[in-house]
């Protein structure tokens, strides 16, 4: 089956019910999306399909009908997306394992809602678990990214 990830087209020979996460990680070697729970309860595997955040552990690869973007495709170390730059500026990460999912979730939120309220942020980001407890910095980074994006 065909799968476009970060602008690159791939031809995959896997069962259609394989979760997108494992097609990305073990078949395509794209390891930015992380495995944390496998049941859409932690958000570490969050990627975009046509710009919308989804839990790749709970999307079957056969059901993907859009372009997939992972953290590696959102921005790069040399050209970070505004959300990544805000995460860098606030030094959000501790262990960092959840952060690619947090960043993808935040990027999707800001795409949809460029000026989220505190409540909007709570609603959008509470599906992404951080065991290290970086939530105060996540909140601050989302706000910084929103401000930056609204400047254009």
């Amino acid at each position: 089956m065909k799968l476009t990830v970060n602008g690159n087209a791939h031809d995959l020979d896997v069962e259609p019910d394989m979760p997108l996460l494992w097609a990305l990680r073990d078949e395509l070697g794209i390891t930015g999306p992380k495995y944390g729970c496998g049941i859409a309860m932690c958000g570490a595997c969050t990627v975009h399909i046509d710009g919308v955040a989804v839990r790749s552990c709970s999307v079957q690869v056969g059901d993907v009908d859009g372009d997939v973007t992972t953290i590696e495709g959102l921005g790069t170390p040399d050209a970070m997306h505004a959300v990544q730059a805000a995460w860098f500026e606030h030094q959000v990460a501790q262990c960092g394992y959840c952060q690619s999912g947090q960043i993808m979730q935040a990027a999707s939120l800001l795409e949809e809602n460029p000026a989220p309220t505190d409540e909007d942020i709570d609603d959008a980001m509470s599906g992404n678990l951080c065991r290290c407890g970086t939530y105060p910095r996540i909140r601050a980074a989302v706000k910084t990214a929103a401000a930056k994006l609204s400047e254009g």
Partner: protein
Amino acid sequence: MSRIGSIARRTFLIGSAAIAGGVAFGVYAYKQPVRNPLTDDLAEGEAALTPYVHIDQTGVTLITPRTDFGQGAYSVQAALLAEELDLAWEDIRVDPGPPSPAYYNGKVAAEGFPFPATDTGFVAKNARAFGDVVSKFMGLQITGGSSTVPDAFEKLRVAGATARQVLLEAAAQVTGIAKETLSTKDGSVVLPDGTMLSYSELAPVAAGIQPPREVALKPESEWRYLGKPMTRLDTLGKVTGTAQYGIDMTMPGMVYATVRTNPRLGGDVNGFDATAAETANGVLKVVPVTGGVGVIANNTWRAFQAAEAIEFDWGPAPYPADMEAMWEKVGTSFSKDRKDSRFKNDGDVEAAFESADTVLEAEYRIPYLAHAPLEPMNAVVQLKDGRLDIWTSTQIPIFAMAAAAEVSGLDAENIHLHVQISGGSFGRRLEDDFIRQAVELAQAVEGVPIKMTWSREEDMTHDFPRPMQMARARGVVKDGHVEAYDLGIAAPSVASSQMGRLNQSLPGPDIAIIAGAWDQPFAIPNYRVTGYRVPPLVPVSSWRSVGASGNGFLHDCFLDELIHAAGADPMEERIRLCWHAPSRRVLEAVAEMSNWGNDLGPDRGRGVAFTLSFGVPTAEVVEVTNTPDGIRINKVYVAAEVGKVLDPVNFENQVQGGVVWGLGHAMNCELTYDDGMPEQTNFHDFEGMRLYQCPEIEVRGLETTDDIRGIGEPSVPPAAPALANAIFAATGQRIRELPLNKHIDFV
């Protein structure tokens, strides 16, 4: 460039081109002969003097042997070295180095003695120094106990300064210019005329120079990195998805595996039927492993699916099967024959109770808790031509090597452990169980690299949790003050359970049973803390802040009860009772930060709690609102004394993270057992805290002592009691059992 400089420089460049040299510096060369592990893999012409600074023709690599599982250990170790060695931050490369006794942790054992951190007397100091000797003798390369900074603070600065002196000497020899006229800048020696000789260029000459035995360290006023906000070295990789964790490691030809073992920890496998698994898509092999079965496949998900399809007949648990039976064991352990310690016994509590009109009594309970780091246990292992390579994250590399040697039958020199960064640990990677399994699987497919990953369900149901505990407390108040406090704590021994699995034994009482309770700096006239050792139940282990994680709640909540019974102010009475000046200062700081005493308004309440753990006095104030839908945590204030805040940004992040950890588990989490198995299996029923529940957390680090301490754990213990005390203040409801959500709702 001066003539002599240019000649010397030309000559030198030829010399260094001829020798693709390497050099390594560290603290031991000048101190005493500890075998330097960096000498093992050097090519001819390279050199390694000591274990922390390796220089070759491509640059400087700093060896940071304490594992980074999110607490920023690599960056702070690098900063301590780079401060003295004089490197540009952007040029810093780090490597955890090989497991080696040279990297022993002198501070991790120092807290295992029955002297509170507040005891700076002769005997206590010597006992701690003895802990250093023990660690060195045993080669304890351990990351834990908030000990990275206290252990490294002088050791790594000395290593950096030593290397710098050798490089200056090398430059003097090469150029013929007096050493005193040379300086360093950003990885180069600077000659008087401004010519820069990079450390790489100097490495081959430096390799032959005996390091000085004494070096002077920079005064604090000249610090360039320490004490200032740093950009952690791992930040860029972690925001761009390019950081490689153990679970991301890949090898050509690698296969993927998982295991299922008896969720009744330590129970037998009576039998299993793997027919469906063996014929499942992508499965290469189904193999027995110790305690269960491993599935090797060509994709992790296929391995998970096949493992799920195996039918098991698990044997019974070697411990009581459910919570009722376990609580019975805990409750009956408050007995003379199970008494483990009584290191605190001031005044005469029995006499105080006899003469009192009223004795307050309470019983407290806290549950088992899983570590559940977000990255599940995993390891990549290759066994090929008699050589075993292991890529994994571990807090105990030398024990992990020993485990791999035991499983594989190979000698240590044929085992190579490559320590990876990890997605959290919180104490989970002080265990070697998953490494043993991965080695077993690699043996089944010799020559082929294998990546073993646990499913979240396997991870949750095979944790060695924080132990369940019970406290029985009695107290007397008199004339508006706390007069007597008698606290008994019954808990299984973490030390004997955990060290037993590492084939070690620890004689004597287990400090973890009473840590965070017996050693608190309060001058209560009649004050007694007794530890009772519960017979082994579920195998247990160290969970972020270890004994203090639960004892902070047990000790401080009942103290709060007594203070309220006395009619005293919770903050004022704690400050009045506190005899230890640094501890009093954190209480005073948090009172000031929170504007303690002002009116919060209707349906609001605030609570204070204090715990001294890992040598760090920490006070927290929690403010809550009692809303119609439940308790909302509005704000948390934290003050902690660490002697020196080495990185204010990471300090704040660690403290906030510890508060979230402490609050989230206190509110929402328990691990319960039924039929010998954990009932919680994933993050749907073991959530910790999510963002919507997270309050604003204001942090202040105090630097009023010369006792340099680490901050990975100390903010955890006071969080739960500060919240419970705040709930009491807001609602009048005293909750004596965790998690709190068994008794009250949170929004």
